[in-house]
């Protein structure tokens, strides 16, 4: 019997109260009639099949009624309904969008097999924790370690691909045969390369990315076996990877075998590998770190010179996210949670106000026999319905916002795309929607259905609003405080952006078009061949009407931050690690084209050949550093293993980008003064043209000139120098747009909150206001009365929010480019915005209050 009674708890309470007794009685009768265990058992089966579905149906009936009632009652209050839905949508939308990016970058495991066992292994020396190991050291690691199931290596490549739709320059990775299997993602088509194919001299094979296969090979299955040329060598396509595979990053479009000849193992300083390992089952990060420390110590003993102090850094592959990006995403997610919190407090506040307005209606329903449980249920259904409508709209908002948010995700991660919404994100959105609806529907529902409020019928409109009013004030206060945190954080980032944008890059970017033509080193190994190409192309471009100057350089400023070489000076003790400079090989006219001022001496010129003395142009900081008291012209130093004589001094540029204040001094070397096939990575490939022409027509002419010079040379990275500088700050601009949007939403919501609170306050105090006016209060007094409430909350909110904002600013310090987290103008501006918003929010209620007609109000009571 107890069991049957328990079973009846499946029915809603209201139903139980009405019918449970009778149902129990019927059941008892049937139980008494049942003869024998079999019949009793069958009665129980029957009862289960009766109670469970019927209980469910009763719940559904109630839900249907409540929904119908909700639709009617919300339909009667379109202003409230619309506001609540928009508020919920903003909260859910912001949080969902932020979650979709944060989840993919920071939370979700990488899309590889058992990613928790994948680690990255770097070499480390004091001061540098992530250095690339040499093939020789890598081979020793392979031989000496026991913690790994497998250890693989790769290095980034950049090759000219001929055989697809157009000749093109593509990023790739040369990997050892065991690397891709370590990741555990099978190819979509064909196969991966094997150990026979990573031997020097084996026939070339290549695996394509899904994107490259689609773009350049039309997604045809017969691509397998097709021959392509990569930098003049023949390769056979053997496989295509699936679309979500990105390794080491999403820019990588081909994978080729990484081969080492015996020479590669000779020089332990020739370090260029990245190493990924799969840990043996059960091996912890601590264990593998200990083993690597041991192994690298032994290698150091065997090679004390090259491997002095060399150790290893091991971390999970999933922990590659740079500190700044991680901080940014966390800040973003935090900001979105702030928006959600504000939205929720706003919803709660709206619902409380509404339920107070409805006290009479609820009291009538109670009098008609609706139990407390039914009323709460009705109110929660209502808030859930609002939350669900808002949630749907919010997901739509989030979907339109994620591409912007995805720009905040670092691009150097093994993730294919960070901007898609999937079931996981939708489930998250559904969860926060329901939480929003329930949590902030329950509070007002409990409050209003509490006994005190059911006296609504008797008491008229004046009773029992003190408590909810205090609660609502507290909610609005919280909204303001949170908005201040967001406003100040965005403000600090705006100041940081301004500061960075004001940095002088050291060159003039307006009117300069740039592009990259990477020459294939197998055909252009002889320096003279390359020089002929540059001379022909540059002289033809310079002859174009409207072109002021044109030049080639190894890399344009800010596009490549490395290229740092050690320097030595005869007559000075070598100062390893300190004396270094950023080195570029350049053609004449580079300084003119980039607008870098020539301070002293001359530019490189066509006479700086291999038969002339090796020359160098250095930057001002270089000259200042090494010859502070003497004329630098004619001085000699050694770089790229060659003595060079200084022939000119030019202005400094921010090679490492606008944010780095410590760019190395710069050295420019004549393009002809390099041995055949030496330092191919530094062969000039970036073309810059200063002209008064528009980019499109100039580009057309330049393409023709390049095609005449070499029809197979790929043209890539076409952009203006201005765009390169802008790209420096574009991640920041994206951050700002997002945080700014969140701050805007927050302040808007807080405004709605203030407006709602004051409007409600005025409507419940109409009588008081009427009496005051009747007794001769001036309009100003009434105005003060209304605005004072809002102003008090604003002041308190700003004061508390300022503390939070300072804490948030400290947390964001790494992103602030030196702007102080206590930046006074930012705090003043935020406080000003809150002030304006408080005024705006108070405006309508205040106007309503001063327009109160005392006679009309008195009469209506």
């Amino acid at each position, binding site marked *: 019997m107890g069991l049957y009674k328990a079973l009846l708890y499946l029915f809603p309470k209201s139903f139980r109260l009405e*019918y449970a007794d*009778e149902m129990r009685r019927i059941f008892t009768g049937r139980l008494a009639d049942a003869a024998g265990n079999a019949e009793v058992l069958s009665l129980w089966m029957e*009862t289960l099949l009766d109670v469970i579905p*019927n209980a469910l149906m*009763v719940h559904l009936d109630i839900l249907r009624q409540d929904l119908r009632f909700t639709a009617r009652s919300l339909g009667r209050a379109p202003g409230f309904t619309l506001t609540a839905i928009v508020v919920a949508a903003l909260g859910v939308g912001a949080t969902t969008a932020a979650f979709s990016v944060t989840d993919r970058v920071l939370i979700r495991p990488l899309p590889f097999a058992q990613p928790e066992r994948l680690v990255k292994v770097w070499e480390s020396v004091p001061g540098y924790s992530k250095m690339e190991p040499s093939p020789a050291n890598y081979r020793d690691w392979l031989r000496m370690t026991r913690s790994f199931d497998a250890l693989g290596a790769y290095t980034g490549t950049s090759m000219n691909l001929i055989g697809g739709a157009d000749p093109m320059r593509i990023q790739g990775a040369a990997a050892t045969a065991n690397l891709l299997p370590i990741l555990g993602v099978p190819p979509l088509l064909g196969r991966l390369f094997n150990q026979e194919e990573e031997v020097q001299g084996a026939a070339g094979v290549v695996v394509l990315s899904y994107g490259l296969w689609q773009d350049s090979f039309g997604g045809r299955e017969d691509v397998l076996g097709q021959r392509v040329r990569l930098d003049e060598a023949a390769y056979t396509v053997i496989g295509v990877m699936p679309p979500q595979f990105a390794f080491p990053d999403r820019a990588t479009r081909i994978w080729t075998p990484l081969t080492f000849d015996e020479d590669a193992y000779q020089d332990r300083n020739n370090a260029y590998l990245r190493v990924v390992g799969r840990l043996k089952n059960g091996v912890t990060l601590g264990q593998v770190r200990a083993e690597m420390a041991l192994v690298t110590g032994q290698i150091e003993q065997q090679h004390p010179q090259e491997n002095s102090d060399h150790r290893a850094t091991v971390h999970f592959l999933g922990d590659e996210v740079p500190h700044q990006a991680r901080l940014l995403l966390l800040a973003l997610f935090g900001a979105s949670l702030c928006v959600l919190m504000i939205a929720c407090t706003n919803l709660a506040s709206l619902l409380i106000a509404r339920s107070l307005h409805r006290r009479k209606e609820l009291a009538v329903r109670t009098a008609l026999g609706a139990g407390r449980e039914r009323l709460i249920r009705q109110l929660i259904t209502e808030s859930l319905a609002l939350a669900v409508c808002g949630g749907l709209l919010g997901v739509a908002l989030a979907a339109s916002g994620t591409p912007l948010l995805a720009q905040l995700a670092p691009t150097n991660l093994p993730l294919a795309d960070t901007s898609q919404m999937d079931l996981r994100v939708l489930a998250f959105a559904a969860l926060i929607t329901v939480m929003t609806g329930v949590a902030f529907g329950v509070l007002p529902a409990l409050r209003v259905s509490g006994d005190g409020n059911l006296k609504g019928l008797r008491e008229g409109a004046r009773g029992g609003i003190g408590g909810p009013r205090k609660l609502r004030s507290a909610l609005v206060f919280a909204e303001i405080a949170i908005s201040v945190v967001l406003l100040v954080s965005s403000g600090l980032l705006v100041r940081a952006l301004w500061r960075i944008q004001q940095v002088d890059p050291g060159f003039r970017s307006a009117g300069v078009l740039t592009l990259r033509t990477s020459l294939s080193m197998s055909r252009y190994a002889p320096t003279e061949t390359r020089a002929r190409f540059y001379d022909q192309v540059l002289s033809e471009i310079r002859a174009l009407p409207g072109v002021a100057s044109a030049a080639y350089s190894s890399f344009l400023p800010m596009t490549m931050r490395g290229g740092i070489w050690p320097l030595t000076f005869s007559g000075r003790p070598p100062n390893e690690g300190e004396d270094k400079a950023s080195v570029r090989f350049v053609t004449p006219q580079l300084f003119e084209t980039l607008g870098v001022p020539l301070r002293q001496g001359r530019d490189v010129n066509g006479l700086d050949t291999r038969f002339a003395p090796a020359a160098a142009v250095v930057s001002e900081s270089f000259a200042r550093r090494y010859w502070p008291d003497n004329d630098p012209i004619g001085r000699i130093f050694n770089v790229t293993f060659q003595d060079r004589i200084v022939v000119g001094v030019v202005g400094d540029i921010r090679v490492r980008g606008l944010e780095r204040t410590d760019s190395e001094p710069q050295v420019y070397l004549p393009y002809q003064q390099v041995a055949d096939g030496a330092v191919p990575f530094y062969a000039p490939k970036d073309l810059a043209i200063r002209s008064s022409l528009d980019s499109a027509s100039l580009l057309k002419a330049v393409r023709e000139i390049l095609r005449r010079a070499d029809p197979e040379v790929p043209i890539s990275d076409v952009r203006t120098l201005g765009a390169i500088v802008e790209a420096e700050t574009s991640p920041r601009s994206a951050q700002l747009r997002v945080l700014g949007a969140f701050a805007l939403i927050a302040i808007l919501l807080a405004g709605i909150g203030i407006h709602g609170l004051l409007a409600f306050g005025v409507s419940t105090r109409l009588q008081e206001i009427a009496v005051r006016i009747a007794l001769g209060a001036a309009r100003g007094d009434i105005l003060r009365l209304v605005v004072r409430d809002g102003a008090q909350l604003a002041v308190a909110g700003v004061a508390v929010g300022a503390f939070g904002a300072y804490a948030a600013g400290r947390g964001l310090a790494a992103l602030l480019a030196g702007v102080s987290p206590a930046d006074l103008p930012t705090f003043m501006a935020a406080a000003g915005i809150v002030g304006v918003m408080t005024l705006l929010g108070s405006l309508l209620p205040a106007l309503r209050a001063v327009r109160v007609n005392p006679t009309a109000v008195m009469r209506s009571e």
Partner: protein
Amino acid sequence: MTHEPLDPRRFLPLPPATFHILLAVAEESRHGYAIIQDVETRTGGAVRLSAGTLYRSIQRMLEDGLIEEVRERPAPELDDERRRYYRISTLGADVARAEATRLTELVSFARAAGLAPERA
């Protein structure tokens, strides 16, 4: 709150349980267990309403206004005062009638198609 007069056909077709309950309370007021017994007798044991189905239907029929709870009780010697009694409402009678008409029509269609016995 005022209600427009409801069209009985709005409720058609009736769920079988609802129709049986309407028939059971058409002639006299009955309590729940009596309704179950009446339906069982009427159908020769073919239909045996379960308690859950019965009271869920009753709740719905009360809300829809097809039946009413009876305030005046039966003669004291017949009354089981712990029980609630229900009787058909005017709307309920209209609805039952409409359902019967609907069913009759269906049967006549079946008869015309030779799928039902001729009237005796």
